């Protein structure tokens, strides 16, 4: 069966309502100025053939995430003050505490959500970007599956942030015991946001554009 890219036939789908739109003028769809752009007949949103400046924007968010990942893991995410003496906890030491206390399933959940997922997202997106930029002959279907997984798992990293916001209110006993958030948590939250934006700005159709000639 012959597969055809919609773009090669002069069509594209609207990002918002997924309606097929005939591209009137390629110059109009690639312009960044919204006033001169073609609009979807159904939902009136701006029609783009591909997400604008997808690669450079994804690289920018990705590098932001990578840089922020260092303070996120080095600085304490929260500090437990018990009778005046404090013990700062980084993400990894929090997981290790859970392991020491024998709570393996929860330790695994926290490890996956706050250590594994951000790293997998960053590495996965980097692989996708390299594949598109260097035109590597890797299965486009596998790459699309990877992209979908990255898009799906991103939100679960927020777990750490929500957990801190709960703990901060639960343990609030003045001088006896209290938990305060740490600077690492701010960095970690920014990593999650940066990787979510990185996944949003990446356009998986770019992977298939490279291979259009193979399938025809």
């Amino acid at each position, binding site marked *: 069966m012959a597969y055809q890219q919609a773009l090669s036939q002069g069509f594209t789908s609207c990002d918002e309502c997924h309606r097929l739109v*005939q591209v009137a003028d390629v110059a109009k769809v690639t312009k960044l100025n919204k006033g001169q752009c073609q609009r979807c007949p*159904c939902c009136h949103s701006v029609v783009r053939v591909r997400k604008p400046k997808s690669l450079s924007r994804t690289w920018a968010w990705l590098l932001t995430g990578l840089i922020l990942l260092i303070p996120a893991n080095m600085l304490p995410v929260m500090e437990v003050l018990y009778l005046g003496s404090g013990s700062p906890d980084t993400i990894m030491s929090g997981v290790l505490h859970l392991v020491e206390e024998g709570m393996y399933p929860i330790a695994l959940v926290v490890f996956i959500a706050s250590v594994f997922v951000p790293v997998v997202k960053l590495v996965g997106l980097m692989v996708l970007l390299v594949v598109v930029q260097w035109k590597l002959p890797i299965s486009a279907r596998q790459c699309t599956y990877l992209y*979908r997984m990255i898009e799906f798992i991103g*939100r679960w990293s927020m777990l750490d*942030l929500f*957990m801190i*916001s709960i703990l901060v209110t639960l343990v609030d006993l003045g001088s006896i015991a209290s938990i305060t958030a740490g600077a690492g948590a701010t960095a970690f939250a920014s990593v999650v946001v940066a990787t979510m934006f990185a996944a949003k700005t990446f356009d998986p159709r770019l992977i298939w554009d490279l291979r259009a000639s193979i399938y025809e």
Partner: protein
Amino acid sequence: MKASIYNTTTDTEHWAACHDCDLLLPIHDITESQVARCPRCNAVLYRHKKNSISKTLAFSLSALLFYIPANTLPILTLDIYGNTGRNTMLNGVYRLWEQGFWWMAFLVAVCSILMPLFELVLLLTISISIKRQRYTPVLPFTIKLQHLTSSWAMLEVYLLGIIVAIVKMSDLGNLVLGQALVCYLVLLAFTLCALQSYDRHYAWQATEFLRDKSQRNVNYEK
């Protein structure tokens, strides 16, 4: 496939392009509980949902009833030596703000409180206006906004946060699960049901139909 098939302008209604791999595909009518998938990259193109709008209306309305108690009543209460710490969804944000972590407070507020509320209100307004068969210029705007909020509403992740907090704190003192936990779970369940029954594809089709109808009526009255 020949290129000439696509050349007429009316064809855009019977063809679609996969949003993940840009494959040009003919649209087939699918019946109940069927899913249209892209043959090349397996992306879900369209899912047939029965009574989509009525279900969304019912679920989002019932979820909204539980929104205020779930946010203001204590979800967890921790008792250490007679001192109690209470957690509600709102005071978690407030405490973070108080401690000077405004960026975290902002993110927690947006992802666990504001966006879930916006999402429910938008789903409700969309389903009401489609149910009433009346076109308002706000309708396309609300559908677009709902699409935007859906990736930032993380109510289900908050549940995982609660579970981890329970496990971590259970041996520190006397941990009591509050009434709001039940409200929160019901809110979460109804929100997920509303999202599951909501059909954005159908909402756009209905919007286009209603707009055409309202424009025809205007011409007729003239």
